[in-house]
């Protein structure tokens, strides 16, 4: 079980779980989360004959479709390589959207586990995101290769990949924690998220520059995904707008969502199972 060898035993009452206890349990469960995430990732591609290639291939194929179609239809005045612009956006977005979609249902999907043993329920969405992340790392390697082929101006800015990735993971975790908890009570969440993904995709400027939308584009800076994509593009040398303000907005979103998640998990951590 959770705290296993470190601090065995527990005390339960109807009261909300203390924040320190919640974080301590979550920390104690880190190896379990890693194991579950690896298992989840491994199982997902095990039966496919080219396995892991799908994790990398899908966003690339989607990106190439946009590159081909949009290059024929229109010309964005970007000043940077359009293929690198799209592939960068697409790889990050496809990780983000699939992570949030699967993590939203993770607590409900994990009921088989959750009704038998205790571990902090917050670990389920985290496991789901971490499992998706296993496929993201090779995607970034492919992205770097493609950027080199398309002669993107790579340089020191590449170090921005690290904070960009941390921001993207934090955002995915924060959103998923809230959505997954809501999904236990309102099973509609799953469909709400599925329905939101496409509008959100277009609202994040994944395959086109948001500034071309004019006033609407400026409004969309409050979309938390915009800051993440801006940082990634800056890292890959295809940045077309300042990323600092949108990134700060994303950080604010992470903070707000985590603040919302904490009381939910303190109150319902040990009661979710009653509704599964």
């Amino acid at each position, binding site marked *: *079980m*959770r*705290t*296993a*060898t470190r601090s*065995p*035993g*527990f*005390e*339960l*009452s*109807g009261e909300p779980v203390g924040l320190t206890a919640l974080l301590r349990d979550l920390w104690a469960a880190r*190896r*379990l989360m890693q*194991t*579950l995430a690896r*298992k989840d990732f*491994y*199982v997902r591609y*095990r*039966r496919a004959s080219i396995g892991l290639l799908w994790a990398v291939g899908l966003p690339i194929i989607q990106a190439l479709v946009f590159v081909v179609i949009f290059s024929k239809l229109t010309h964005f005045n970007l000043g940077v390589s359009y293929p690198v612009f799209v592939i960068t956006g697409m790889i990050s977005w496809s990780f983000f959207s699939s992570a949030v979609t699967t993590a939203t249902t993770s607590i409900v999907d994990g009921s*088989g*586990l*959750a*009704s*038998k*043993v*205790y*571990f902090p329920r917050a670990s389920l969405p985290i496991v789901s995101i971490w499992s998706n992340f296993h496929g993201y790392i090779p995607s970034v390697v492919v992205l770097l290769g493609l950027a080199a082929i398309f002669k993107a101006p790579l340089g020191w800015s590449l170090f921005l990949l690290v904070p960009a990735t941390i921001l993207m993971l934090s955002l995915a975790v924060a959103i998923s924690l809230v959505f997954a908890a809501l999904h236990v009570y*309102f099973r*509609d969440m799953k469909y709400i998220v599925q329905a939101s993904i496409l509008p959100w995709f277009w609202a994040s400027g994944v395959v086109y520059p948001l500034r071309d939308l004019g006033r609407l584009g400026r409004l969309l800076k409050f979309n938390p995904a915009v800051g993440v994509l801006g940082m990634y593009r800056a890292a890959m040398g295809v940045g077309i707008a300042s990323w600092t303000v949108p990134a700060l907005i994303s950080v604010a979103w992470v903070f707000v969502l985590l603040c919302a998640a904490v009381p939910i998990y303190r109150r319902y951590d*040990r*009661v979710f*199972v*009653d509704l599964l």
Partner: protein
Amino acid sequence: MSDKVISIRGVGKRYVKYDDVPLLLTRALRFRAGNRRTHIWALRNVDLDVAPGESVGVIGRNGSGKSTMFQMLAGVTAPTEGTVRVQGRVAPLISVGIGFHPELTGRENVYVNGMILGLTKREIDARFDSILDFAGVEEFIDTPVKFYSSGMFVRLGFSVAVSVDPEVLLVDEVLAVGDLAFQAKCFDRMDEIRRNGATILVVSHNLNAIRRLCSRVLLLHDGLPRFLGETDEGISKYHDLIGTPTVAGEDTAEVQITHFEICDSTGKLTSQVKAGEEVLCRARVRFSQATDTPVFLLRVNKDSGQEVYAENTPPTYSRRVEAGETVALDIRFRAALPTATYFVQIAAGMGAFEGAPKAVGKAIGFFVGGRSWVKGTNDLEGSFEFGRAEPYTDGLKAALPSSPKRKASVKRKASAAARTGHRERLIPGSEENIPR
């Protein structure tokens, strides 16, 4: 800090029961009319302290709150009121193979399952061989478990679960797994865990297992604790509870069973019978119509519903009963039965023909058990003797009468009170010892 491993104080658990699927839309529309949901207390006012090394059984009918209590002890759900405190590592044997994925190999699943149960990777490495050994699936350990037989799957899951070396082991009905040889192994392993100082809590309908493993029982009924104490007494109380009509009787206008009870051979009301002893069923049957052929039936069923014994009086054997007469019916039978819960039921009718009016009494539950230290389903009342080995001459029979004096007869004496109708053991080779 108390020395109790488990401490449950005034615990209650309330669930919300929805009368229908809570669609957001219909709920919103019905908002003012009030929600159609009710609260149900699955468990209430439970207090229990368990000391290290103790084993306690939790018994009760389905829906009495046993599983809810175990979920709280496993830390899976929190109580609505009161506190549950558990010290030490808990291994919930509530179901085996938690988190097993069919696509993963046995080896991979052992690691995932072990970590779910709270072991570290290093701890699993150290236990891996013994886990494999216990499960007996060495050849298939690198095969995906989807190719396992259900028995192999369960054995592997159980092996991981019992390898945890828990301070508290929660056992919920999982002993009904695997073949008999594996079940025996599980029992031995649980004994070993207990000897190592672990605390065991058992939920089971298999009262034989409870009797074997537990020194105390907690009896739950409709979510409330009814009894906490010595096992046999608890089992007896449990049967008093299930003896109250579970299967309602059916009376007809012509025949009514007005009273039915079961007693031991001395006529004392009981719900627990020693194996092999006589049971007396006493009933009052009222006939509203006169009949020349009253018929009576006795049926004993196992709690699983399987018929163990049924016999009825032949119509020819009867005597006339007048209209309005109430007859006293005594039926005696010998409880030569394996340890288990049984239900006894009587019926009375007018003639053995199909369609003849008859009354069926309610079923009363009772427990048949062998002597408390005996393991297994049947008390075969074995006797043990040993003496100095003599060289065989014409086989053992010839050797025995030559040295009857040296024999020492060893037997564990049942307490006289517990064993009415005490019989002497036969000692082969000394004919005069045979009673009767």
